[in-house]
């Protein structure tokens, strides 16, 4: 519509939040484009929720700034709030109200006019398969149903930006797939979606991804590019005894990380390591393990291991573990 539409949906500069001595979010610089699904990937305590809360104005940054939909959050939080939808990590609608009552309340709280609200609720009940449960109390519904209700409530006012804090943590795999279908539909309709997760498969579906560790942004970009550009060579060790190989391989100083995936082991070797394949084989032979080793393409999990490891290395010194 106007020039600001081409500006990033979210732009943070040096965004920092401290709670007492602890730094929850540490100098995050991000530019999140409009109309895409953007993911925050990170373990618990990596600062995902705190960053989301600062973006929707629920927490004030200790330093740094965030511009959301072209406006400064510190100054225009109220104006921004009307254009964004927020789904907190914990189910935050009212357990003792029914689906319909919850949606009606949220519609009124958002300031929707009565006929518009009625139409919108009607459509959402169908979109989110909630019509049969319209008069059921939210507290008696399953995790997946509650999540659909929460998403419906967050999108009542057709926000330009949708912030979802670990929306699938209490949901079965089928519901998770359906949920992501809905997110893609929303993004297709022009909504910017920012979603935090600690599931690799969900992170991989995002258009753009930020990996957070200990409050810092440690990697950023489209998942495919992050995988292609991972700063390691990946080898797969396969066999029943692969678990036993983990410790000896991790001891090699050019091995950046070892991750167990079922009966397979992903070994991440530094790019500048001389003859890593031979090195791994020699180590396995030393340990008396007869296992297959083959080079393999990196996965997002490998990217995650490398990104979070680098962070540890900078605090603990080179080659520190």
């Amino acid at each position: 519509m106007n020039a600001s539409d081409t500006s990033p949906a979210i732009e943070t500069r040096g965004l920092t939040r401290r709670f007492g001595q602890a730094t929850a979010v540490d100098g995050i610089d991000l530019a999140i484009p409009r109309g895409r699904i953007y993911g925050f990937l990170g373990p618990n305590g990596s600062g995902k929720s705190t960053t989301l809360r600062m973006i929707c104005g629920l927490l004030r940054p200790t330093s740094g700034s965030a511009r959301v939909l072209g406006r400064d959050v510190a100054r225009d939080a109220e104006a921004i709030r009307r254009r964004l939808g927020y789904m907190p990590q914990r189910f935050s609608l009212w357990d003792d109200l029914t689906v319909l009552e919850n949606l009606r309340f949220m519609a009124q709280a958002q300031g929707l006019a009565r006929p518009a609200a009625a139409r919108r609720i009607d459509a959402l009940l169908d979109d989110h398969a909630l019509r049969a449960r319209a008069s059921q109390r939210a507290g008696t519904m399953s995790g997946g149903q509650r999540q659909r209700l929460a998403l419906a409530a967050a999108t009542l006012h057709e926000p330009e930006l949708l912030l979802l804090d670990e929306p699938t943590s209490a949901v079965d795999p089928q519901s998770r797939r359906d949920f992501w279908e809905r997110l893609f539909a929303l993004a297709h309709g022009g909504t910017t979606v920012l979603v935090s997760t600690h599931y690799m498969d969900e992170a991989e579906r995002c258009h753009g991804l930020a990996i957070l560790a200990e409050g810092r942004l440690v990697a950023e970009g489209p998942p495919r590019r992050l995988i292609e550009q991972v700063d390691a060579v990946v080898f797969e060790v396969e066999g029943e005894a692969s678990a036993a190989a983990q410790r000896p391989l991790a001891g090699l100083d050019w091995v950046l990380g070892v991750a167990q995936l079922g009966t397979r082991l992903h070994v991440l070797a530094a790019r500048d390591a001389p003859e890593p394949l031979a090195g791994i084989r020699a180590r396995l032979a030393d340990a008396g393990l007869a296992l297959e080793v083959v080079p393999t393409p990196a996965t997002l999990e490998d990217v995650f291991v490398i990104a979070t490891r680098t962070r540890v290395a900078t605090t603990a010194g080179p080659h520190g573990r």
Partner: protein
Amino acid sequence: MAAERRTPSLRRIAAVATKEVRQLARDRLTGGMVLGLPVVQMLLFGYAINFDVRGLDTAVLDQASSSVSRQLLDELQATQVLQLVERVGSERELESRLREGRVAVGVVVPPDVERRLQESTRPVAQLLVDGSQPTLSSVVGTLGAMPLLLRHGARGERGERGREAARRLEVRTLYNPEKRTAVQIVPALIGVILSMTMVLFTAGAIVRERERGNLELLIATPLTPLELMVGKLLPFVVVGLVQASVILLVGHLLFRVPVAGRFVDLYLASLLFIAATLSLGLFVSTLAQTQFQAFQLAFLTMLPSILLSGFMFPFEGMPVVAQRLAEILPLTHFNVMIRGIVLRGATLGDVWPQVAKLAAFFAIMMIVAVARFRKRLD
């Protein structure tokens, strides 16, 4: 955040109020308390708080044993304050009965009781009271001032003067001629019971949303603090008026408390008091982090209300500090209003200083509560 000032939206206030009513209606225990609590408290207070002292167990040491002493004792008995249960033979015996707590009052009729009656400068008889019970001693104290000499003194000239003196001493009780405590207590109970229930209702209002995790979503909507506070307060105004009606009805049916003033004034006064108390609860709610804290704080506001408002102890007898503190409390002013309206038939205009004070209290509490409520988590 100050960049945008919007006029409060009635629709949003109504949304919050509707939500509160639904939640209240579904919370069976709390819903039951709306009607149950005032009735139970009314019965407890109405029957238990009884400043009318009757039938105190009394032992008598009658050293005169004459017709005059018997007449005197009959008269004491006739007041119904004393109940003669035992006759003893010596002062030591009488004192030990009192010490053991077997009787509350001892009466000593001296051998020269007849001559004392004529003289009227010396006490006719002695009343020994268990002073460890304050209300008791004050009641029996008034008994000592009772115009006992009246009929006996009627014989002589001195007696005539004694009668005049006695008449002048006579205490006329206005507005509550029977001196029934219920008549004084019940109107005040409206305030006491309301200050117990109202503060509790709103004290949990914001904290409950916080504890159940709803607050994070609520503050991410365009709802303003004022809309939220007013929406949370409105349903309980109605609840408060219902409770006030229950108290009045029970008071009328069980304790025969008449209402001298107009009901419009009574309800307007109650409305003002309810709003003031609810706003105090909202303020408490912005201070507390958990519901448990909120309830503790609520109790902290109730105790001074009940103790200092003049409901239990006469306001005039309190130290200045306590009086100053009591001046802040809505219940103090409401008690003045409600006694005036119910017992003396006063109008709201007659008690306008109290009206102004309650209105000011409400306004200040609302402003503080709204200002304290931040649409942020930090």
